[in-house]
């Protein structure tokens, strides 16, 4: 039995966790999520990309608490934030805690989710407000 990210190519299970994006060597655009096809800015193929580590830390640009959801997980209510990472890209992710507002500084942490058929624990990256 192991513990692994839901999408291993998006996360490194470091402490604190690291978000994995890509950098286009041709035009230097840094983007998340890492793209398997090509660069939206200059059209270079993904074979020219290099992996680009992004600190899981940033500022909340928008926030919404979800009251209705079409799936059983996440359990409602849960809160989603738009987070401008310090490394540039903007991500959307679940933000835990009641104190999040636009402008909050947040950091990522790994949280266990469901188990897969082999009993492996799937973890997701959530964010919380930095006190």
């Amino acid at each position, binding site marked *: 039995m192991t513990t692994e990210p839901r999408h291993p190519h998006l996360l490194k299970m470091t402490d604190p966790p690291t978000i994995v994006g890509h950098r286009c060597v041709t035009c230097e655009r840094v983007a998340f999520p890492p793209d398997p096809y090509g660069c939206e800015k200059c059209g270079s193929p993904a074979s020219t990309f290099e992996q680009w580590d992004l600190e899981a830390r940033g500022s909340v640009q*928008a926030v*919404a608490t*979800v009251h*209705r959801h079409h799936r059983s997980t996440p359990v409602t209510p849960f809160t989603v934030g*738009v987070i401008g990472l310090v490394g540039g890209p903007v991500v959307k992710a679940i933000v835990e805690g009641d104190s999040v507002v*636009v402008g909050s500084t947040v950091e990522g942490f790994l949280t266990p989710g469901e188990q897969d058929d082999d009993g492996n624990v799937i973890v997701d990256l959530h964010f919380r407000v930095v006190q």
Partner: protein
Amino acid sequence: MNAPKLLSDRPVFVVGIGLHRYQRRSDATYVSLGLTAVREALVDAGLEWTDVEAAYTGTALLGMGASRIMLSRLGATGIPMTQVENASASGSSAIAQACLEVASGRSDVVVALGVDKPRGGLGAAPGEAGINNLEGGSVVPFTHFALLASEYMNLHEVSDEQVAKVAVKNHRNGSQNPFAQRQKVRTLEEILTEPISGSLTRLQCCPVGEGAAAVIIASEDGINRLQIDRSRAMQVVASATKTEGLYGEGVGIDAALTAETGAAAFEEASLGPSDLDVLEVHDAFAIEELLYAEALGLCQPGEAASRIESGDFDIGGSCAFSPSGGLLAMGHPIGPTGVGQVAEVVRQLRGEAGTRQQSDARVGMAHMVGIGAVCVVHILRKP
């Protein structure tokens, strides 16, 4: 390369409109929905099906080959029929193709229709692209727009109640539209109940049901040859389509895309925002009307909420926004929505909108966005 000005070199007109009411999913087949709209459009134009030279069907949910099994029941005339899928803008793109076909001189009379029935889920292709992200399935469309609302409300110090007043207005408009899925006047208190995501409540989110809408596009040659009533023919003076570019991190792509597409349409029509008397806007979620009012230049950034409150975007105001009820009240059955918008603009320009008539309407715009992201804008003018 500068695009040839097809719509001014060979003008095109909407000469007929028809709808099947938007409604919750029923036992009615899409064929019966579509035929109702097309038959009504033919009667409205005073045309026979045999006068129609081509058909474009906007649909996103029906699957392959929707057109012939439907339209052949008007007579299997063998005309070219093409399905057009462009997410929520499918119907708008069907109209764009019909306008292009007539403006190019290939045909004189073309029908553009939209028809759809919900089948559970949207089946959007971007979700199958193999590009994963951190939020997984936690951000569905209403949460995407709830996040845009959060950003906008924080930036411009706009309250939940001010955003909700968009829905009050559009439900009031929809209550006067016999083709609307929602036909009830709603109070602000009613609008603010039943939270869905962020500040958005159920009545600030559009219903996705079933329905159909059709418009008939004709050239001047077609109007003259078939003796169509010229006084009820409204000219399409711009047809603009754009897809999302790279606007920079943290920039609202939906508003930026609308701003670009609207600017292209205004340039093609040699008109500006102040010329608009009627605007059917993609208000799938209440916040969108505020975002797009500003993106299209109808007011300055941060002003839209106060303009709504002042009544400036009511029927009778400087520009009537979504007099049909918009997506919020008329509904958003996907394929038909963009066609229904153009039908409403035509009805307004003709002066045939009854109790929801914007007085002396001479210029109107229909605006749709769709997953992908795509934006389609048409501008129509009373000749």
